[in-house]
């Protein structure tokens, strides 16, 4: 348990990233999500923009930045769909805020921590999306616990690998 909590100054230090990474990674996530789903329809069970949002939030450890980043990525993702702009934006804004807030308090360098956070955030994201679609937009949306569980697991596994890859882009401190 002690390993999951940020106990040192180094754990809560903000990890610097090149600006280009902050721009290209979300775009690449959106592009891959759109393109790969074209040829592998089951790829849409993944939510790469959500994973990118979580990663930047927990690494930046800034709730405002996480909120804005999540909002922008979500709106961009909304732009590719038929639904009004803001549905994914709202969800990912909340996810970004929560992830950044938790990143200050827990150790996000651990893969276990990342996995648990990702699983929870994916589940929360689906829950918020269901509320917004069913209650705010009054549109049909089938909720399946099994499906959401599978989604959470898959996204968690992919997130662990993806976060490790993105860690390679960190600016080295000498």
């Amino acid at each position, binding site marked *: 348990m002690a390993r999951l909590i940020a106990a040192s100054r180094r754990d809560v230090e903000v990890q610097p990233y090149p600006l280009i990474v902050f721009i290209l990674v979300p*775009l*690449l996530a*959106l*592009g891959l*999500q*759109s*393109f790969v*789903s*074209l*040829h592998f*329809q089951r790829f*849409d*069970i993944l*939510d*790469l*923009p959500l994973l990118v949002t979580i990663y930047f939030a927990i690494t930046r450890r800034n*709730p*405002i930045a996480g*909120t*804005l980043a999540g*909002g922008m990525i979500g*709106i*961009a*993702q*909304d*732009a*590719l*769909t*038929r*639904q*009004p*702009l*803001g*549905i*994914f*934006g*709202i969800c990912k*804004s*909340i996810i970004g*805020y929560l992830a950044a*807030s938790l990143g200050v308090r827990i150790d996000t360098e651990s893969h276990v921590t990342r996995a648990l956070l990702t699983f929870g955030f994916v589940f929360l994201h689906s829950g918020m*999306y269901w509320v*917004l*679609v069913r209650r*705010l*937009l009054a*549109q*049909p*949306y*089938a909720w399946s616990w099994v499906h959401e569980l599978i989604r959470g697991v898959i996204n968690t596994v992919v997130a662990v690998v993806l976060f490790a890859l993105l860690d390679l882009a960190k600016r080295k401190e000498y």
Partner: protein
Amino acid sequence: MESFFSRYKNALVLIAVLLTQVIGVAIQVRRPLPKEHAQPDAGGVRLIRYWAISLVSPPERLVHWLGASIIGVWDNYLDLMHVRQQNKDLQAELQRLRIEEGGIVEDARQGQRLQQLLAFKEKYVYQTTPAQIIGTSGTEQSRILSINKGSKDGVAVDMPVITPDGIVGRIREVFPHTSQVLVITDPTSGAGVILADTRIRGVLRGNALGQPQVERVMPDERIKAGEKVITSGGDQIFPRGLAVGVVDRVVNDSEHDPLVDVLIRPAANLSQLDEVLVVTNMGEEVTPKQKLDMMQSQAAADTEQLRASEVLAERLPSRVDPDAPKTDDASTDDSDVEGEGIARPMRPPSALHPDRFTPNTTPTADSLTPGARLAPQSEGKGSITASVPKPRATVPTGSNADGGDATETAVAVPKKKAPEVVPDDGSRPPATMTARPATQSATTTPTHAPMVTMPATLPHTTTTAGGTGTSVRPATTGSATSVNGAAAHSAVGNGSAVPGTGTTQPRATTSAGGVTTTATRPAGTTSSTASSGASASGAGTHTPAGNGATGNGTSPAGTAAVRAATPRPTTAAGDAANSAVKTKVIVDGPLPAGAKKPATATNPGQTDPATQTQRTPTTAPVQKKAPELVPDDGSRPPPTMLQKPKPQPQPQQTPPAQTQAAPSQPQGGRR
């Protein structure tokens, strides 16, 4: 206050962001405008969406282009070995398809015209734009495809997107170079469909799991898995008749209990789409290319029809092609049959030196005497037709018009079945045909007229004259082509078969002085008056429809054509009343508007002068059983048709319009 904002800065920012987005969502989902003003998105939303797509599309295009290039290089390398042959094959296939397309377009236009009559507008696919799928929405909650064609390519909102296998969806949003396609598996989509077998209509939407279904259908046991589902065209988006898919299963609609949802398995492979077709033009517009194709297809169809008619004319002797080129040989000119399609069997050209083997010159077998010698033939002056050495009724030629040495032979032969009259123009022959007396002063033409012999018509009497002539009455012409000068057939005179009595006159061939006259029966006349043909005038009063020979043809043009209405040898020249015969007439086609059903087969009551001259020497009149007029519409012939020929000549009963020259002609007399 400052500490409040600094303390809850993060939360305030989050609330502000969320509030902004919620307001934005609320603005976007407000009640839509009417359809003519409706747009998928408002201006600001559309701009944001456009920015997002503009950011995402280039990488997608790049990745798609790279993938397609790699695949294309590999495929083209392999295909180049056979690409030349494939190109030829495809060109040929393209030409064939273009011709077929022309016909299909014409059919579609005809369908549109008919639908306009029915006040139902249906759309057809006239022009499509191929597009490539470059991306999706990336989420399983939104079934959206992105294509690489936009407004600059002619794509507009609500255009249907299809594949050769089936429909895909419709255009939802259009940008200059890209567009969004709302797939039919999306819950917000909708398409009017119809089950092909059960004809059940419904609205196709995607369910929450992304499978299309026909919602809220009344339970029907006939709905089985595998039934085809096609578009109905009722949504005014998708053209009618496009494949949608097949029925997968039927499930109960939980929210609408008595109703069921029919799950559909899409015909198009929506999960792996590479290229689609955007239907950019639906309507009545026909491109010049399509017009050209239509003309080509029409020409091809005409050629095929002409060829088919030629084949039909060869195989069916009762049918001829009216457009067939006519031969120069006059003897084969059957134009008097003028049947406008009435049958003319193919005949060989007339012989330059006819002999007894020449067609139509051989006497009937029953008129020949074993061991007898045929009459000599005078070459160059005509042929003697059936101048048999065993005349059963020979009439002195003094009664003939030319007053020459023509002899007239009336051969009483056994009754034979009358040929059938089969008009092919769908019109019914005149109800009754009355032969009007022919004038003796009929205009005769000594020239050699074309010999026309209708099928199944044989000369009833022959009169030998000084030449050979044939009374030929071409169809729809107002003049008889000619008759031999000696015989002066009444065909040239006012021998007019007035429609109305349905009387059939045997055909008369007068041969006088080596002249053989054959009065042929033109089309449009169903019968002719019975006459022996002994006299030049009055015999063979077969008046064609509309030609009227030399002026008294009162038969209306366009009436049912005669198909050998004359019985072969019928009666000897004798009493006109007894010579009246009935002809079995088969009428093909419906009755014309003003025509009556053949009611009577009466004797016209106008005795031909020739018949009077034949009374005395000829054999006893043979009472013929008149043939019956039998319409082909399945109705029974009227009982009046079966009446006996009247013994006394009856006054003309035809309408005045059809008997213009009748009053001026003395009945049955020669001048």
